[in-house]
C-alpha cells in the first residue's frame, strides 16, 4: 500500500483526486464488484467506495446504501476517516463520542459498525475510502481485515489503471487532433507547392549553389533534364552576362541571411537566353542563424524584358536619327549657306578689283576670316552631334578626331591605341553605342574634375575590349572628389546601353578617386 501523505495541503490533494477524473462519474462494474466482495467477505450489508472533495463525500460504488453522497460537517470525523494509513475500525459508532453528529447515524439509519481503508494515490494522497458498514456492532477478524486492505489496494489499482487509460485516451485524442492539423497543413503546403510549381521556376541549392532540388518548370525553361541539373552548380544556367559586382552583391546579401531580388539573364542548354525575375530566400540554421540552403523562386520575364529593351532601343535609335538629321541640317544646311556667302563675298571682291579703297581690303579679309571660323564651328557642332566619320570610317577615326578636339580644347594629354582601323565584326549600332558611352564618360568627368590625361585602348582579340584610364589632377581645396562610379543614374543608363549592344561596362575608381578605369567588353 502507498504511504499516506499527511500534508494538510488540501489543494494538492484535490488536484490529485481531480487527476483521476472519477468524481461524479457513472458506476463501474469492477468497482461495484469490489464492494460486493467486501460486503460478502466481511459479512456486512453495506459497502461503499467513497471520494471526498472537502466535506462532500460521493460514492462511486455502493451496496446496501441509498444515498449517492453525504456531507460530513464534522471535520474531526471527516479527517479521522481520511487520514489513517491503516484500517479505521469502529466497533459501535453510537458508543463513540467523535461520531455523534455523523450523518450515518441520522434519521432512520441504523449504523453501528464502520470500518474503512484509505485509497492512497501514487503520490501518497488519500483520495477516498473503501468503507464497510453494519447495523450491529462488531469486530473484524484478521482475515477480513486483510481482505479489506487487499480490496482497498485493488480499488486503487483499478483507479490507477483507469487514470492511465483516460490519459492515454486524452493523449490519443490530442494526437488525432494534431494528426488532423498536420494533414491539413500538409495539404495546404501541397497546395502552395502546386501553385508555386505551376507558376514559378523553383530550385533549392546548398550554400555553394549546388542544385539539390528543381521543379518541372525549371527543367522546362532551361532545357536540361532533372538528372542533368541535380548536383550541378546553378551557374550551369548562367549566361555570363552580369558583372562580378552583381553576383558579389547577391552572395553578400543571401550569405547574410537576407532575401535578394533582381532580374537575371540565364541561358538554356541550347544557348538561348531567358530573363527571370529572381527571389532567393536563405534557409537559416536554427542555432547558428547561418544559411544552410537557398530557395530560388524565379518568374520568366523574357517577354517583358524584350519589350522593354526593344522600347529602350527604339528610343535610342530615334534619338540617334534625330541627332543625325539635326547634324546634317547643320552641316549641309547652315554651314553650306555660310560657305556660299563667303564665296559670294570673295566673288564681289574680285569683281571690284582695282576699285576697293585701301582701307576696305582689311575689313573684307576680316569678314571672310570670321565667316570661315563660323563655318568651322558649325561643322564641329554637327560632328559633336553625329560624327560624319562614324558613318564613313567607323569608330576608330571618330574617336581619334574626338580625342584630338578634347586635347586642343581642354589641354588634356590623350593617347589612343587601336589594333585595327575598323571594327569589322561590329555593327554601326555597336559603333555608335561605344562612341556615345566613351564620350559621355569623358564629358561627365570634364564637368566634375580636372583631367590630366586619357589613355584609350581598343582591342578585338579575342573579344572586343575597350579600356580607358582617366587620370585627374586633385582640385585645390577639393581633396575628396566624388568617384565616377557613384553617379548611379548616369552610370545605369550607360550600363544599360552597353548591355543592350551585348557588352558589359565596368567602372572602377582608385582610392583617391583621381584615377578611373573603364572597361567595356563583349564576349
Amino acid at each position, binding site marked *: 500500500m502507498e504511504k499516506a501523505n499527511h500534508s494538510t495541503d488540501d489543494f494538492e490533494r484535490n488536484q490529485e483526486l481531480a487527476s483521476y477524473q472519477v468524481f461524479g462519474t457513472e458506476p463501474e462494474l469492477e468497482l461495484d464488484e469490489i464492494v460486493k466482495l467486501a460486503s460478502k467477505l466481511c459479512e456486512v450489508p453495506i459497502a461503499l467506495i467513497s471520494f471526498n472533495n472537502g466535506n462532500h463525500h460521493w460514492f462511486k460504488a455502493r451496496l446496501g446504501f441509498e444515498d449517492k453522497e453525504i456531507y460530513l460537517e464534522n471535520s474531526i470525523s471527516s479527517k479521522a476517516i481520511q487520514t489513517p494509513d491503516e484500517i479505521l475500525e469502529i466497533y459501535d459508532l453510537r458508543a463513540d463520542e467523535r461520531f455523534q453528529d455523523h450523518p450515518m447515524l441520522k434519521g432512520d439509519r441504523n449504523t453501528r459498525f464502520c470500518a474503512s481503508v484509505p485509497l492512497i494515490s501514487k503520490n501518497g494522497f488519500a483520495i477516498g475510502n473503501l468503507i464497510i458498514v453494519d447495523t450491529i456492532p462488531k469486530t473484524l477478524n484478521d482475515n477480513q481485515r486483510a481482505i479489506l486492505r487487499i480490496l482497498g489496494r485493488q480499488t486503487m489499482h483499478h483507479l490507477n489503471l483507469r487514470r492511465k487509460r483516460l490519459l492515454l485516451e486524452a493523449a490519443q485524442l490530442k494526437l488525432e487532433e494534431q494528426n488532423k492539423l498536420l494533414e491539413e497543413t500538409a495539404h495546404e503546403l501541397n497546395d502552395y507547392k502546386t501553385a508555386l510549381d505551376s507558376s514559378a521556376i523553383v530550385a533549392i541549392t546548398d550554400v555553394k549553389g549546388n542544385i539539390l532540388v528543381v521543379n518541372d518548370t525549371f527543367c522546362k525553361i532551361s532545357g536540361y533534364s532533372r538528372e542533368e541539373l541535380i548536383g550541378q552548380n546553378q551557374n550551369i544556367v548562367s549566361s555570363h552576362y552580369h558583372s562580378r559586382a552583381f553576383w558579389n552583391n547577391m552572395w553578400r546579401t543571401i550569405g547574410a541571411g537576407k532575401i535578394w531580388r533582381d532580374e537575371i539573364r540565364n541561358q538554356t542548354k541550347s544557348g538561348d537566353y531567358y530573363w527571370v525575375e529572381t527571389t532567393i530566400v536563405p534557409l537559416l540554421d536554427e542555432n547558428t542563424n547561418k544559411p544552410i540552403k537557398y530557395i530560388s523562386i524565379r518568374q520568366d520575364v523574357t517577354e517583358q524584358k524584350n519589350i522593354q529593351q526593344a522600347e529602350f532601343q527604339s528610343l535610342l535609335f530615334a534619338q540617334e536619327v534625330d541627332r543625325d538629321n539635326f547634324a546634317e541640317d547643320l552641316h549641309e544646311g547652315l554651314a553650306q*549657306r555660310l560657305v*556660299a*556667302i563667303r*564665296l*559670294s563675298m570673295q*566673288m564681289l571682291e574680285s569683281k571690284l578689283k582695282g576699285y576697293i579703297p585701301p582701307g576696305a581690303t582689311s575689313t573684307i579679309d576680316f569678314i571672310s576670316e570670321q565667316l570661315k571660323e563660323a*563655318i568651322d564651328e558649325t561643322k564641329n557642332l554637327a560632328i559633336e552631334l553625329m560624327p*560624319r566619320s562614324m*558613318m564613313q570610317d567607323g569608330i576608330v577615326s571618330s574617336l581619334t578626331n574626338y580625342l584630338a578636339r578634347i586635347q586642343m580644347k581642354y589641354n588634356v594629354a590623350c593617347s589612343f591605341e587601336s589594333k585595327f582601323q575598323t571594327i569589322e565584326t561590329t555593327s554601326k549600332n555597336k559603333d555608335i553605342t561605344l562612341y556615345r558611352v566613351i564620350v559621355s564618360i569623358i564629358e561627365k568627368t570634364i564637368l566634375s574634375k580636372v583631367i590630366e590625361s586619357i589613355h584609350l585602348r581598343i582591342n578585338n582579340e579575342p573579344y572586343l575590349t575597350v579600356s580607358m584610364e582617366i587620370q585627374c589632377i586633385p582640385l585645390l581645396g577639393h581633396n575628396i572628389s566624388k568617384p565616377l562610379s557613384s553617379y548611379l543614374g548616369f552610370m545605369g543608363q550607360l550600363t544599360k546601353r552597353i548591355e543592350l549592344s551585348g557588352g558589359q561596362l565596368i567602372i572602377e575608381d582608385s582610392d583617391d578617386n583621381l584615377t578611373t578605369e573603364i572597361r567595356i567588353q563583349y564576349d
Partner: protein
Amino acid sequence: MKQFNILQVEDNEGDVFLIKEAFKEAGSNVNIIVARNGREAIEYLNNCAAIPSMIIPDLILLDINLPKLNGHQVLKYCKSSEFKEIPIIILSTSSASDDIVNAYKNYANCYITKPLELVDYIDTIKSIESYWLKLTQLPNSMLNEPI
C-alpha cells in the same frame, strides 16, 4: 551661240547665285531653271512631259541635302522617268561614301563635291561647262533642235 538649259535643284540661295555667276564667268550661253526643293524639281519634269511649251533641260545639277524629298529620291525618280536620258550631275557638300556610292547606284552621271574656296568653285563650274556643254553630245539637244 547655242543656249543650254540647266535645271538646278538647290535650296541654298548662295549656291544658286554662285553657280549663275560661275557660268557667266565661263562664258557659256546658259539658261538656269531653279527648283528650290525635291518636289519642285519633280513637278517641273512632270510639267515638261505634259506641256509641249515647257523647256526640257539639257542637264540637271542636283544637290543631295534638300527639303521635301532629298537628292537621292529625286535622282531615283528622274532615272525611272521618261527623262532618264538627261545627265544628272550631283553637286553636294557631302563626301560621305554612302552618299557617293548610292548616287552612282541610282545612275547619277557624276558626283562632285562642292569646293570651299572661290577659285576652286569657279574652276569646278568651268570644268562642268567645258566637259558637259562643249565636249560631250547631249541627248536632249538632238530632240530640241530640228534636224
